[in-house]
């Protein structure tokens, strides 16, 4: 038995086998392009793999599936399409413009490609990154860790999951945490959010409501964790009054507050977006490095899995076009978040390159039930549009790409804000 050669050559290297990476690989194979997909986890599929509730596959596969079924289908699809899928293979460094160093049980090797697609996804900020002070007891988890423990079927020595949980955050993923807790025999006794409103997808509101007596504390922050060995309580602070109270619990789940896994992008010297902290891309999902593309929640932390997958489908065509050569991209105009938004993705506009699904993705910092969107370029207001769907912190706000019609390529940065 021999290990792989020191250098593996591929037309395209896709880094990350979640919905975006796998869908990109399927798309590339259908276009006849050779693909190696690298996944650092022991199993491919990404986050849906450990998310057991339903609601996956709507926009990309036009059906409703559970997370694991969805993940399995994408993995099988990539394998069937002929993608060379390597699991347990972690990219640790760049070793050239389009070449990376990989560690896997097979060895330490180099993967060189004509093009690279970064699809490394996003993670939830853990307690420490949120600067929540207090003791450091067992029983403080993120949703990801919770789901890995519960659905990975792993025994937990420290008894991470107790019987009374506070769920921090009221985003889509927070409801997923509530359901997972219930499966683990742990009751969510309180949900907290710093915002005015809670967010929940239709499919989950029903399920969440079926959890009896889950109160939600709005405009509330967890300001301290108490318990020497195991969580005993949290301190809750009302943002508007500064009033604090102690709330007894033995488990705290920090949900949402996503940040892209963008370390590789940054190590490659790509232009980074200060808003979402992933790489800046244009509508073709090109990064600032020649031949390096992005896809999925690395670029917009986080939208739903199907939207990430459709990034993958989109980028496959763009990469294939890149491999065929042809003319380079046009001049680009930066698209920046204005009032009421934290980021816009893609952050670069090239009129010839519409973004995936011809939509711009934004992250709102305040709630508006009928937001008025204002597009400006320099001093000029290009467009005011009343949008009939809400903008809300905790879920991606989508706008049709057409709001950027009329942008002048040489008139400077464009901002999209709430009026």
């Amino acid at each position, binding site marked *: 038995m021999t290990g792989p050669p020191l250098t593996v050559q591929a037309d395209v290297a896709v880094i990350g086998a979640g919905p975006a990476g796998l869908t990109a690989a399927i798309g590339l194979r259908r276009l006849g392009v050779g693909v190696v997909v690298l996944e650092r986890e022991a199993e491919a599929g990404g986050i849906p793999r450990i998310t057991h509730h339903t609601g996956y596959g709507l926009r990309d596969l036009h059906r409703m599936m559970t997370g694991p079924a969805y993940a399995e289908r994408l993995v099988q699809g990539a394998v069937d399409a002929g993608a060379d899928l390597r699991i347990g293979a972690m990219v640790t460094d760049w070793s050239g413009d389009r070449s990376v160093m990989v560690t896997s*049980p097979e060895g330490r090797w180099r993967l060189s490609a004509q093009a690279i697609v970064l699809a490394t996804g996003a993670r939830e900020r853990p307690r420490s990154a949120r600067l929540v*002070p207090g003791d450091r007891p067992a029983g403080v988890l993120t949703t990801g860790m919770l789901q890995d423990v519960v659905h990975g079927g792993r025994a*937990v020595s420290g008894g991470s999951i107790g019987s009374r949980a506070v769920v921090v955050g009221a985003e889509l993923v927070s409801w997923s945490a509530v359901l997972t807790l219930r499966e683990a025999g742990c009751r969510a006794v309180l949900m907290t959010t710093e915002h005015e409103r809670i967010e929940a997808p239709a499919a989950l509101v029903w399920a969440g409501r079926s959890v009896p007596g889950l109160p939600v504390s709005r405009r509330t922050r967890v300001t301290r964790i108490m318990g020497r060995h195991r969580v005993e309580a949290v301190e809750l602070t009302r943002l508007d009054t500064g009033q604090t109270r102690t709330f007894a619990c033995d488990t705290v789940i920090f949900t949402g507050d996503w940040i892209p896994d963008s370390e590789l992008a940054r190590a490659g010297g790509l232009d980074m977006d200060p808003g979402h902290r992933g790489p800046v891309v244009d509508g073709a999902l090109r990064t600032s490095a020649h031949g390096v593309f992005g896809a999925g929640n690395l670029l917009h932390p986080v939208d739903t899995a199907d939207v990430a997958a459709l990034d993958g489908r989109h980028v496959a065509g763009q990469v294939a076009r890149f491999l065929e050569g042809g003319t380079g991209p046009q001049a680009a105009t930066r698209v920046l978040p204005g009032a009421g938004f934290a980021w816009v993705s893609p952050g670069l506009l090239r009129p010839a390159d519409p973004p995936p699904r011809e939509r711009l993705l934004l992250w709102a910092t305040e709630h508006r039930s009928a937001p008025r969107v204002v597009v400006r370029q320099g001093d000029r207001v290009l467009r005011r549009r009343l949008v009939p769907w809400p903008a809300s912190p905790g879920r991606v706000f989508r706008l049709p790409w057409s709001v950027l019609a009329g942008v002048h390529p040489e008139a400077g940065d464009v901002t999209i804000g709430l009026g």
Partner: protein
Amino acid sequence: MSAAEPALVDVAVIGGGVVGCAVARELAGFDVSVALIEARGDVGDATSKANTAILHTGFDAVPGSLEARLVARGYALLGDYAKATRIPVEGTGAVLVAWTDEERGSLESLRQKAIANGYLDCEILASEAVYALVPHLGPGVLAGLTVPGESIICPWTTTLAYATEALARGATLMLGTRVTGVSVADDVTTLATTRGLVRARWVVNAAGMGADVIDRMYGFDRFTVVPRRGELIVFDKQARPLADCIVLPVPSSRGKGVLVSPTIYGNVMLGPTSENLADREDTSTTAAGMEFLLGKGRAIMPSLLEEEVTAAYAGLRAATEHGDYVVDVDADRRYLLIGGIRSTGLTASMALAEHAGLQLAGAGLALAPRVGLPPVPVLPNIGEAFPRPYQRADLIESDPEYGAIVCFCERVTRGEIRDALRSPIPPCDVDGLRRRTRATMGRCQGFACGADVESALHATDLA
């Protein structure tokens, strides 16, 4: 592990922190039997684990003090020992940065102090030279003082190396064993512990945070340990290029100030705070402490604050009313106190152990060199600046487990976790595994690998 209750040992060392482990290692190098008694489930699990992790030159110690002498000597001893055992050390150097006229004014006297301590390499820099050295410092730097010899070191591997070598030399390690009483007879001292009686001819008190409690069991009332909490914030590895050397504050009337330091694991650390507490086990962080540190950090290095925080934690230092180390032998009762060891104790540890040996010998403990000592142990490298298993094609080829990365943020492999669990002093919990491998200490704090790591630990519980 070793027998829980040795019949009679020549020396019992109370305290498995960096100092106690160094003392046990030192004494086990002689022809005496040694028991190392630690209240917690692991060595280096209290004060020693949350150290600022600097290998100090001792440039700013009080000239003529025991601390000054032992830090300078310990710097050389530990430097050499680190090379032999592969404890990671990086010679980053340090610069003291003056932000006020008062601070600038005191640089020269600090330089003179360094000279008085036998450290001759300090140099005063003008503002531009300081910025050339650390370009990301905030505006307002007036001057600086370099200390090229200051280095960063892994405090966890250091303690573990001492304990591992002590064991290899025949010492007995008694973990989870808290000393609750002392009874001194003519030839033998009996220690009552939570795991039964321990009989020893000589006793060394290196109990750190509990040293005054043990000392009072001997009837002394010489000092009181006041736990001084130091909160620290550790920034993401992506911040590491911002701080290539240790940025130290100049002591002034504004207080001690905080430092910004690269860590041996490739992060950047900001801290510590300094706050006296009553509770000897309160290692919680506070909103006020974090706010204070972030405020300081914003002034020292604004771009640091744009990076993600990986961890925030607090350590307790065993402060006493004495300005110096207290190493004092009671020959009649065959008892040695090593107290008042501040954060410099990591650097001084081997010199303290050497000093302790001399004190004990002077008081009548026969210390004949032991023949046939085992070779110095080589510890697994967890320093970022040195090759780690995931980077080593040769190692992965010989054992694919070194190619199976489990903790992605810190790039810890299954092989390393296995090795730690099979090592002479295996970890008893996730914290202990983290101190041996770095597993789960990264930016995701276990999002990706926490469950894997817990199940690995659990698997060995059952084994």
